[in-house]
């Protein structure tokens, strides 16, 4: 029996609202543009066939990011992936900002993959530790540990606003 596939309008709306987040997460996780584009396409082609009744856009976004993470994990497990070159330069952006984004991606890219994911989901997408735990399939305490170690690894100043935000996230 043929399942009804999602419409172009639905997919287009999903990509409009959530596509950039999917791409950024895949790039953060995999470190290269080609693989990030592959994951983007595979995620939305999976959405094409999925039958979940999404409550709202946040529910859809969480679903998309979980699928993206799962796909990134599958790719990372392959022997080929472990032999790829180090992360390439940042994706192209508007000219005045590209150097800035490159600096930020380099900072994130220097972290181990699991820390990188937690940092990205928290500081870029704004998820709290419980939400990140649900997205990544681990314990909230694990997320907190990863965020802590990421900050330590980046040797950042922990005074002021950043500490307050961290405390609120606990």
């Amino acid at each position, binding site marked *: 029996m043929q399942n009804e596939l999602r419409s172009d309008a639905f997919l287009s709306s999903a990509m409009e609202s959530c596509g*950039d987040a999917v791409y950024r997460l895949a790039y953060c996780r995999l470190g290269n543009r080609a693989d990030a584009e592959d994951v983007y396409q595979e995620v939305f082609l999976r959405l094409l066939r999925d039958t979940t009744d999404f409550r709202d856009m946040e529910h859809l976004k969480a679903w998309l990011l979980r699928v993206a993470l799962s796909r990134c994990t599958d790719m990372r*497990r392959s*022997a*080929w992936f472990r032999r790829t070159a180090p992360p390439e330069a940042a994706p192209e952006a508007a000219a005045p900002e590209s150097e800035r984004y490159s600096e930020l991606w380099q900072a994130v890219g220097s972290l181990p993959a699991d820390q990188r994911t937690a940092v990205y989901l928290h500081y870029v997408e704004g998820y709290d530790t419980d939400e990140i735990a649900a997205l990544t399939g681990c314990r909230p*305490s*694990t997320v*907190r540990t990863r965020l802590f170690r990421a*900050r330590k690894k980046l040797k950042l100043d922990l005074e002021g606003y*950043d500490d307050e935000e961290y405390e609120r996230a606990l």
Partner: protein
Amino acid sequence: MKNMNELSELKNVKAPDGLRERTLSAAREARREDERTYAGHAAPHRRRFGAVKRFAAAACALALALGGWGLWQSGQTGQAPGDVVAEVISNSFGIVAYAADTGETMEPNGGRIVFAAGSGANDGENGFFSGCLFRVTGGNIATVSASIDRGGLYRVETVELGSEDELRDLMFSDTGDTVMGYGTGPDSGIDRYFADIVTKVENGFTDSYDPDVSYGLWAEPKESGGGDMAEEVHGRIDEFDGAELTVTVTFTDGTSETQTMTLHTGRLAVEYVDGEPGPQLTGEVLADGDEGDEGYVYGVYAELN
């Protein structure tokens, strides 16, 4: 970058131009293929865009890395360069330590692996489950087999359950396995529940490969002597000192590879993470008498042979 909050600027990064249109185009093609299939027409073999692109990228990059070896080889054998590349990169095998309480893995460093010990149990009936866990990593692995010449091994599998009730039922069921559960609650808006199922395995067991399954060091049950518990655990840990652990994987092509390691016990350096109740391993093994910058735990590490 001076502040983690600067990372939020990355939210302005957009997916590349044209990616949305290409994805919609792939979706339309998928719909057409479905219509052909269900209309009784023979559907062409569906090639996923992602797989084709990655394979081509793999062929190019590996050829560069090997100085064109793949292309040379294909010239000699008449194989397509992509087939040669796939053959060279297919099989790989590694072992990493796994910390169940944080979900962290720790790769070997300088031929040494440091094992965590935060999630163990000393059961007078079922034995000493050390919490010293490892995972097998690699490509094209079909089965995993392991043995140890002192004590034994156990398996830990994490399963996701549908509700808190299911988790509770599993934890109190009489399966003979030890079950530890955890989850995120309804307050977070996302409910997910997980259980770690712990099973003693026979020495030399063979499992179908699952990269998310962990294996741990086990020792025979012993009655507690009633003395200091820390010393008792140290004594149990020391039972693994000098043990030889052997892990063998069989790949999907039938070939196999074995890794052996000699276990040692000693002081493992730790650090304390804000918000967490216990110490976290740094990966460093301390010399006798060295107490480390933030302290140590007494545990197991392995030297790869």
